[in-house]
């Protein structure tokens, strides 16, 4: 094979690979929409999204409690994970001595690989009893948020740390040369400069949090109700699908696919915001 031949035709091989992933995504989207269609036709969009009663065997297809449940646990997880994550990434990038980083960074990366079931099990055995000491049964939004924080932190830490490291040295050198302290440099120069990457890491983490099913089934209590406090049990969208999909049939099954469509839309929205944020961040950075 001459290098001329390879150069002419390698692009087709690459095209096949790219189209394979696109085809899989399109297939998933089309299949989910097709299965969800009967519910949208028979039950209606408003009843589905804004209804509060979920009794699928008796005609109640309101998923609002699950939407709120998902948003609640994700919000709680983000409130905890963002400061912790950025703080840890600053530590790893700027503050920690080399030995500490050598140990801590791989530890963080191992956390990414732990399966969700294990997080759920630890949540059920450790975190739920802890939350029970504060109030309620322990199966709660709070327990869900705590478990999600643990799952989302490694993603935020590793991406944020890489972003901070990628900030051009002259920014840091310039700030220090002008007399800023190390902390002032980190807070006023490095973190804002790494803003787009940090945001990308946060959005990625949020995407994982919204879609998490297995761990949430084990710690949120799976009660379909709008939670009034972080100590109340709830059910997430993804968890709701996983709990019932095995045995649902007929319109019930279609309704679970409709939940999938809602999840799709949520994740698309989150990713779009991410892309916009990154683009704006890049433009601002180029100006400086």
């Amino acid at each position, binding site marked *: 094979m001459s290098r001329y031949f390879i150069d002419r035709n390698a692009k*087709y091989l690459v*095209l096949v690979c790219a189209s394979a992933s696109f085809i899989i995504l399109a297939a998933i989207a089309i299949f989910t929409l097709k299965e969800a269609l009967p519910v949208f036709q028979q039950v209606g969009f408003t009843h589905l999204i804004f209804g509060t009663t979920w009794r699928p065997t008796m005609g109640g297809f309101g998923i609002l409690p699950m939407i709120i449940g998902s948003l609640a646990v994700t919000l709680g997880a983000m409130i905890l994970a963002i400061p912790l994550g950025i703080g840890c990434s600053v530590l790893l990038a700027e503050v920690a001595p080399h030995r500490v980083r050598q140990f801590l960074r791989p530890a963080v990366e191992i956390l990414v690989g732990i399966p969700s079931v294990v997080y759920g099990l630890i949540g059920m055995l450790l975190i739920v009893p802890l939350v029970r000491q504060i109030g309620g049964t322990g199966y709660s939004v709070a327990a869900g948020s705590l478990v999600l924080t643990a799952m989302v932190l490694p993603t935020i830490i590793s991406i944020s740390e890489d972003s901070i490291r990628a900030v051009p040295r002259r920014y840091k050198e310039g700030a220090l040369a002008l007399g800023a302290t190390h902390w002032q440099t980190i807070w006023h120069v490095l973190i804002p400069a790494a803003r787009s990457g940090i945001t990308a890491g946060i959005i990625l983490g949020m995407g994982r949090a919204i879609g998490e099913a297995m761990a949430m089934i084990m710690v949120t209590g799976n*009660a379909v109700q709008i939670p009034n406090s972080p100590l109340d049990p709830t059910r997430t969208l993804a968890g709701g699908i996983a*709990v019932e999909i*095995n045995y649902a*049939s007929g319109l019930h099954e279609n309704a679970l696919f409709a939940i999938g469509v809602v999840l799709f839309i949520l994740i698309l929205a989150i990713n779009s915001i991410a892309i916009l944020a990154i683009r704006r961040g890049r433009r601002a950075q180029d100006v400086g």
Partner: protein
Amino acid sequence: MKIRKGWKWLILPIVAGLLVAAFTLSGCSSGSLGTITENGSTTVQPLAEKLAGAFKAKNPDVNVVIQGGGSAVGIKSVNNGTVDIGAASRELTADDPPLVKHLLARDGIAIIVHPSNPVTNLTKEQVRDIFSGNITNWSQVGGQNKSIDVVAREEGSGTRTAFQDLVMGKALIKSDATLQNSNGFLKTSVSLDPQAIGFLSMGYVDSSVKALAINGVAATEENAKNGTYPVVRPLYFLTKQQPTGLVKDFIDFCTGTEGQKIVAEEGYITVE
């Protein structure tokens, strides 16, 4: 190396797409000769695993695959042909598809609490009120002044449906009860919470939880067998049609003398 405009570069992606579609739509044919697949009720699961082990010991070239998922999964799976045998821990209703029932055993449903809970006996009405949310504190039934944490099973559970029929009647299990997906998870959940109450297949009860007496009748296998314990339900192996071949051999084994001996050993109630 640039892709110029034109239709020719679409050929490869389309071919790739067709290949992917062909693979996914052709599907695999079910089970090889010598394999029996079963899924469904988690109540039946440990019993089915023991029976499968004994059957395989007698027939070494047969593979018996036992899974869980809950009674509704078993009914759905055997009805659409995913498995050979579906297990259910409740009676079939008019809403279920028509399937052939093979009575495997009977099983009591125990009302379980944490071993440290001082309460040892409840009336059926008290159990109903607790699970429906009318009674919310242990002190209302003779226990400590602590709130009651109700743990239940998911909607597709045969144990839950049987409990609903036999104990709850018209009352509904309260909507903010914690739901667990299997007998095993429910038992773990109750064993970790001193204020919890749940319902569990009697075959699963061990020292990590305590089974309450109902209306003064202790939750033992003998009481379930002689009819004094009020919460007992049938355990079924279901098949789509009358079974033949290996599946028939396995079911005959389970309902015959050898199988029933194992049923008794595992703590379930034998059937004649």
